């Protein structure tokens, strides 16, 4: 903790992550053109989550920051997930 002491991320790390993100993007576009049925949603969201995770961990420094920030981010994503799941208990059953 404290300013100036935490890790300075190298340009090369960023560029490597960026390349990965671009690769994942082209992957998801390619996969979308295939017909995977129900799986297509899962794959698309899975790739998107992976991309988001990379941005969070590297671009947004979560990997290098205090653990508390990771816990906070986890709390808010879990909250959102709970909202989604509980709402779907209403929808998934009746229609």
């Amino acid at each position, binding site marked *: 903790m404290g300013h100036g002491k935490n890790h300075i991320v190298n340009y090369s790390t960023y560029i490597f992550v960026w390349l990965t993100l671009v690769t994942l993007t082209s992957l998801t576009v390619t996969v979308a053109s295939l017909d995977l049925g129900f799986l297509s949603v899962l794959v698309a969201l899975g790739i998107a989550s992976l991309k988001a995770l990379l941005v969070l961990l590297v671009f947004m420094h979560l990997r290098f920051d205090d653990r508390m920030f990771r816990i906070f981010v986890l709390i808010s994503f879990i909250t959102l997930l709970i*909202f989604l799941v*509980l*709402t779907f*208990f*209403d929808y998934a*059953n009746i229609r």
Partner: protein
Amino acid sequence: MMLTDIKSGNGHNGEYIDFYNAPTKRKGIFKWIFSTDHKRIGILYLVSLLTFFSVAVIFGFLMRLELIAPGKTIMDPQTYNQIFTLHGVIMIFLFIIPGIPAVFGNFLLPLMIGARDVAFPRLNLLSWWLFILGGFVAVISLFLPGGPADTGWTFYIPYSVRTNTNVIPALMGAFILGFSSILTGLNFITTIHRMRAPGMSWFKMPLFVWSLYATGWIQILATPIVGITLLLVAIERWFGVGIFDPALGGDPILYQHLFWIYSHPAVYIMILPAMGVISEVIPVFSRRTIFGYKFIAFSSIAIAFFGSLVWAHHMFTVGMSGTAMWIFSLLTFLVAIPSAIKVFNWVSTLYKGSIELEPPMLFALAFIFNFTIGGFTGLMQGALSLNIHIHDTYFIVGHFHYVMFGGTGFGIFAAIHHWFPKMFGKMYNKRNAKISFALILGGFQLLYFPMFIMGYLGMPRRYYDYLPEFHIWHLLSTIGSWILIPGLILMFVNLIMALKKGQRAEANPWGGVTLEWTIPSPPSFENFEKIPVVEKEPYDFTHYELGEEVKN
């Protein structure tokens, strides 16, 4: 009301100037509305909140007057519908939700954790400005052609996209107020994480601070949902995008889900800080440590967490899936448990205490009584079969007011009486305060208890007119308002008189042990001359046990 005497705190060395008289760059009212001092902002909030409260009480009074007898009494149905909407919107968004955090949180949080201010003082001022802006936008429709919204404070779709009244200002007002609330929560969480005095570990924080922490998280994680929902209703009205309008394929039940995802946790934004207040008041007037500190602290977190998972119990009659029904019912019952734990711990705190029934304590004990009734009637609504019958009746109205007014409202009154000497450096007339307490409590019971009975008998809520068999209950209820309101007036007059004529208050008139009582009343601009180092437990009253009088 300004203190001119420099030395009003006792046992304090060096030069002390209270924050009212601290030198500032600005003059007059600008000294207040542009101040980033958390204490001034707290008092700004107090004044603005009580103004809105008075307006909403007047609307409530008019509603009760209309309902004194079946048929038209003093207003037509449209006016009635608009008035109950305004009553709800103002009370909820402009009084109870900001209520304790904005006023007492702002004033006390830094004092209680031994800090000079909150983490983001300018953001804090911005919250107040947003609050005023939101309040202004929300009530501006009173003066617009078409009049204020007539949708109820819940803005249920599709009525809120059909009605011709000014719904959008109310929506935007609530949206802005949401951001004010978020910024307050954000500020408090950061403050609690970063600015605790040395030695104040998490379990040495006063319980009021714990409740503000739990509240802060709900404010941050739930409020944006209602923000976007209300924004979408406004967009629906402007552009007709179809997200909610059933004529275009929208789902009115989805609106209700989104609305209650916030608005149920909002109930805990309202009640948790009040519980925090009670946890402060009871030990002070019992002169002993609180019973089960950790259990009360964790139950705040548990309430915040479970409270976020029960929203759909507002929707048991809309035709949800069977799975959703039982899950939300069960979760609703589970959220009652941390609340019960708190009540039992508070009552146990009285055990072997040394109790003095000063006004704040009276309000706190009444809080426990009212809240217990409110809680039990809440359990009744959690039971599915029973909920079907009492949903949308006066039973709900009664329950809601027992929790929100009998709970949070009394909590606010307890807080005002408890920290009034600290905030203003003056002591009010205690006898008048006790009389006003008796009137408020008595009037409250007569006003709201009949609602349970007529609700169970089948009196639906939001009715301009009613069947003759409900007359007696409405009459009793209206009479209750005639006792309650004079009580409120007496209370406020008593406090305002105290500002002018009240005796100077000591630094620690009640013998409290949290940090805010260690500094003079009112505090200096800097709060603490030197940031204190905390060694003791938060409610260490052992000096009374040893027979010593209070030491500062």
